[in-house]
């Protein structure tokens, strides 16, 4: 599956084995949690023979995968172990200990690992699909065949025989049956593991069991206990998979999950007679088929929304939900690219989306910009000549990286008041920013174009100058986004990103803005000295003294680049990690993983996003996932209903100020307690050497982290280390 949950820790072999084995158990419930794995081990041990065989199988799988030299981190993720685990549990349920069992187990484990590796290569690389339990579905019937063929007594484990569960415990038995321990007690432990893993998944699983039960009632006495159990875990797994693992939990994902449940139920009941005739149990075949078909089918949608596919780091359904909501709230969701303003300085929007004059019909998603003087007029002097207009002749810039695909030059500027309806777009540049994303900048000055078709441009690079050609009665700049390359094609959603809106009393950085008439916009104007403070020096450790109640703990954080070029702050003591990006004058934290005691959680809350704009008075809003700031019981109670509550992020308002040479970032949440005090309040100070102090107060509990390796009294807050070195 994925390697996200990992944080650096001890790398001993025992640790590796423990991780690989426990995660193999957890994977079956779509979890990567060691705790969930541990609970599942307990569940299987309800029937000791089954549980022990399963453990032998995952140990064997670890040995085989390690001996074959597979990627250690993938081995630790449990990928190679969970099919072997299911096979092992099955063998444990059928065969008593003895030479035949050992032979079958060894062969089956080797086959499971190899098959998993092979299918993983095929499916994940070519179809971007998971392996699920397909290897188990191939290996286990083969094992059954061998047992029957050889005439080995298929002695069911003692506990399996005696079990006659009362009807109301049937759903729990179904959960246990997934692990070949169809006991209500085992089912209860599996349920506990599911609750620990995810409350949303628990609700989805329960929903699946209800559907399964309903299907059994519908079919009547046609379903045996076996079939009912198979139906139960297949449908429950489908519900969890579609409703929360592969799609962001929401009403829509629940609908898809129910639809998937119906399909899985149909498959199970429909194939049951066939499987009975062939003597091959259905096992988790309906689940695998439903999921693979469902995922491929859902990917054929033109627009990935309702439900939104999980196209980011894989975690628990709760994490998916909050990550997605936070991402949309912070960055918008329409484009992969970030579009900045196509000009230098402050321009004013003079016609927005759905404008009254020309931004209508297929061209509604567009904006016009002009420069207004302090008197509010777009021109100085008489305004009778295009040269009188403030915006005339000003550089026009690429809104994002891309390739110039179309340039028109040579259309004369109109006299003020006149329009050219023949060459109505005037001089223009079309830049392609990605598949199906183009920007058009129109009405440019003739002869001002400095790019040619085919040229690669970067964001902020000059393309030409603002003019008044085409349907332009006075100089202005027209910008629109299109899905196609021809100048003047229909427009798509208009957005600018990470621009500063200029107000009389404040300068506000806005993540996503659709400008309205009168909005004054400019790009971030980076103050490199502020940007440097926000960009931790790679490899240079930062030591913090972090308060925990009444005592302080020393924690060292090291900025690192990973293989893919992503930057991380890693806590040496606690193994926590914070993913960030410091580029183009913006410091942005994407996520933080690991121990909540770490200073990195304070960092994320206090410095979630900071612009290095040259104006100290800049303010901005950011969104943090609310979940981390709620007490655990409240969090768990809210989880089951959270998919239906809509975005519930914590809206934080930040501002940057100065105290002498220190840059200060202060934040407060919109949500307040009963006395009107913001639930979360933050304050971070940055000296020339970077972060000096982080204070975060959540619900009145204050935590402070102070840099220990910086002597604030030395000139320029010089690092003690450097000073000693010199």
């Amino acid at each position, binding site marked *: 599956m994925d390697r996200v949950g990992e944080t650096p820790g001890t790398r001993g072999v025992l640790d590796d084995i423990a991780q690989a084995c426990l995660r193999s158990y957890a994977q079956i419930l779509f979890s990567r949690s060691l705790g969930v794995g541990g609970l599942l081990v307990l569940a299987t041990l309800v029937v000791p023979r089954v549980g022990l065989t399963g453990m032998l199988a995952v140990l064997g799988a670890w040995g085989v995968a390690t001996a074959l030299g597979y990627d250690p981190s993938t081995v630790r993720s449990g990928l190679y172990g969970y099919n072997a685990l299911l096979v092992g549990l099955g063998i444990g349920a059928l065969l008593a200990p003895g030479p035949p069992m050992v032979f079958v187990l060894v062969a089956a484990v080797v086959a499971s690992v190899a098959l998993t590796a092979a299918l993983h290569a095929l499916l994940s690389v070519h179809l971007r699909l998971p392996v699920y339990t397909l290897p188990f579905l191939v290996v286990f019937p083969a094992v059954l065949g061998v047992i029957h063929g050889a005439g080995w007594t298929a002695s069911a484990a003692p506990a399996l025989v005696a079990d006659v569960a009362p009807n109301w415990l049937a759903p729990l038995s179904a959960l246990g049956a997934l692990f070949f321990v169809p006991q209500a007690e085992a089912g209860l432990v599996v349920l506990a593991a599911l609750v620990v893993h995810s409350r949303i998944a628990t609700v989805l699983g329960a929903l699946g069991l209800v559907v399964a039960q309903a299907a059994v009632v519908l079919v009547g006495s046609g379903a045996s206990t076996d079939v009912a159990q198979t139906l139960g875990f297949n449908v429950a797994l489908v519900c969890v998979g579609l409703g929360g693992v592969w799609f962001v939990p929401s009403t829509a994902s629940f609908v898809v999950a129910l639809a998937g449940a119906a399909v899985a139920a149909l498959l199970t009941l429909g194939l049951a007679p066939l499987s009975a005739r062939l003597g091959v149990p259905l096992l988790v075949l309906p689940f695998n088929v439903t999921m693979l078909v469902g995922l491929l089918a859902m990917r054929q949608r033109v627009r990935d929304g309702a439900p939104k596919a999980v196209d980011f780091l894989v975690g628990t359904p709760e994490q998916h939900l909050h990550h997605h909501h936070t991402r949309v709230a912070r960055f918008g969701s329409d484009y992969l690219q970030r579009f900045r303003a196509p000009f230098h300085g402050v321009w004013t929007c003079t016609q927005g989306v759905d404008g009254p004059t020309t931004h209508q019909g297929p061209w509604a998603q567009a904006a016009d910009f002009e420069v207004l003087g302090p008197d509010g007029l777009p021109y100085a002097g008489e305004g009778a000549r295009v040269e009188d207009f403030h915006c005339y002749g000003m550089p026009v810039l690429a809104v994002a990286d891309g390739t110039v695909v179309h340039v028109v030059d040579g259309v004369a500027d109109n006299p003020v008041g006149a329009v050219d309806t023949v060459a109505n777009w005037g001089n223009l540049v079309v830049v392609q920013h990605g598949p199906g994303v183009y920007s058009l900048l129109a009405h440019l000055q003739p002869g001002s174009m400095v790019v040619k078709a085919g040229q690669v441009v970067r964001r902020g690079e000059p393309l030409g100058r603002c003019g008044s050609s085409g349907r332009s009665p006075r100089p202005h700049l027209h910008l629109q986004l299109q899905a196609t390359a021809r100048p003047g094609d229909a427009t798509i959603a208009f957005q600018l990103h990470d621009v500063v809106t200029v107000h009389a009393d404040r300068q506000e950085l806005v993540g996503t803005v659709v400008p309205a008439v009168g909005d004054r916009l400019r790009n971030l*104007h980076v103050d490199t000295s502020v940007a440097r403070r926000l960009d931790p020096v790679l490899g240079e450790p930062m030591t913090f003294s972090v308060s925990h109640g009444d005592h302080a703990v020393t924690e060292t954080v090291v900025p690192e680049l990973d293989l893919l070029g992503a930057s991380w702050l890693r806590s040496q003591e606690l193994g926590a990690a914070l993913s960030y990006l410091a580029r183009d004058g913006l410091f942005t934290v994407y996520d933080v993983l690991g121990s909540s005691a770490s200073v990195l959680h304070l960092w994320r809350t206090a410095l979630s996003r900071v612009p290095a704009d*040259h104006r100290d008075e800049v303010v901005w809003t950011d969104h943090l996932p609310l979940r981390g700031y709620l007490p655990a019981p409240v969090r768990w109670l809210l989880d089951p209903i959270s998919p239906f509550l809509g975005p519930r992020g914590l809206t934080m308002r930040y501002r940057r100020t100065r105290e002498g*040479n220190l840059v200060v970032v202060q934040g407060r949440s919109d949500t307040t307690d009963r006395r009107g005090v913001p639930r979360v309040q933050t304050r971070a100070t940055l000296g020339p050497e970077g972060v000096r102090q982080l204070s975060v107060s959540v619900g009145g509990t204050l935590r402070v982290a102070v840099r220990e390796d910086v002597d604030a009294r030395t000139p320029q807050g010089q690092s003690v280390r450097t*000073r000693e070195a010199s």
Partner: protein
Amino acid sequence: MNDLLPAYERPVLVRHARGAMNKFSRAASMQPATELDGVPYDRLLEAYGSPLFAFSERTLVQTYRQLEDAFATRWPRVRIAWSYKTNYLDGICRLLHQQGAWAEVVSGFEYDKAVRNGVPESRIHFNGPAKSEADLDKAFRGDAIVHLDHFDELALAERVARRLGVRPGVALRLNLATDGVPAWTRFGFNLESGEALSAVRRLIAGDVLQLVGLHCHIGTFIPEVGPYQQAARKLALFANLLRADHGITVDFLDLGGGFASHNTLKAQYLPGTEASPTFARYAEAIVDGLEALDVDPLERPTLVLETGRALVDDAGHLVTTVVANKRLPDGRRALVLDAGVNSLFTAFWYKHDVVPTAPVHGIPEPTILYGPLCMNIDCMRDTLQFPPMSPGEHLVFHHVGAYNVTQWMQFITYRPAVCLVGQDGQHALLRRRETLDDVAGCEELPAWIG
């Protein structure tokens, strides 16, 4: 009022000067200036007394925005560093810092004043030819940007930096030749002679200071844009050379100040309101010159402007009261005002635009405006066509915001009060009128005189 008038004035013959030869003659159409942003001058005088400097917040802020917009729409990174020496009244400085201006100072005193106004030290450009060791110590500790003026200062800066154990970023002040403007060779390192390059090499060899900027300031009150284009181009070419030969990429190019305000120099024929280029024209010329830079468009250095005069001159007004009328032997009328050149230092340079604060009647005649000092030099305005004024009536001098409230002196009279008219019509003091205690407070009496 009539009590003040002389009982009898001998008649004189006044040549009718209506419609003078100069097509910009104001005499025939002299309009009084009765109010400042809606606040009558009379009310300001009532509140703060005469004479009085009055600043318009609206004009100051609008002029700042015009300057910033003119450059910021043409160049990706623009920084305006407020030239403290032009006007370092706290209120004026803070208004400009609120607009985003950094500070440009030329002495330890100005440095402290900027810090007191809340300017982070790392946002101070420290110029000037005579920084002391203590000044450099303070600037390096505070991470300010020191502009080096000469080799002795370079050596001193290295000593101070070494002692502090820091590697400060510094700029080099250059002087260079431009057509039509006498070169200010006394400041900085000369570009054409190769001195500037020597300074760079010396700085690299010293290995203590980091070169982060280049600075030039071609002169003051330059009513032409051509020299700026040339200066910008020369700085750009020098920056290219540093990149190519020494691998140094500077963070900023500082074009200094010197833009003409709307005043009229004494030797100037056209009035400044007509002759001085707009900010847009200066910006066009400078950006045109900077196009010579051989750097990626996304990594262009910050353009620093140290504009002082052109930012604040138009916002300042001096209101005075007529003390007396005189008739000179040559027939000219003379007015004695209550404000003199000790307050309006720029009267030595400019033909200030001056008008009455109330509607005028009577025939304009050649009039010379004198101040209250018992000194022959105290002439506020050379002869101009001016309507008759009576004692107690008021005049207002326009475009006096720059250099006066810093270069004024306590001489014979007290320095007048300075007030600010806010954007919403409110007004308040920026500096009260001096008192005897202010002036005598610094004095000491030796014991034996006692």
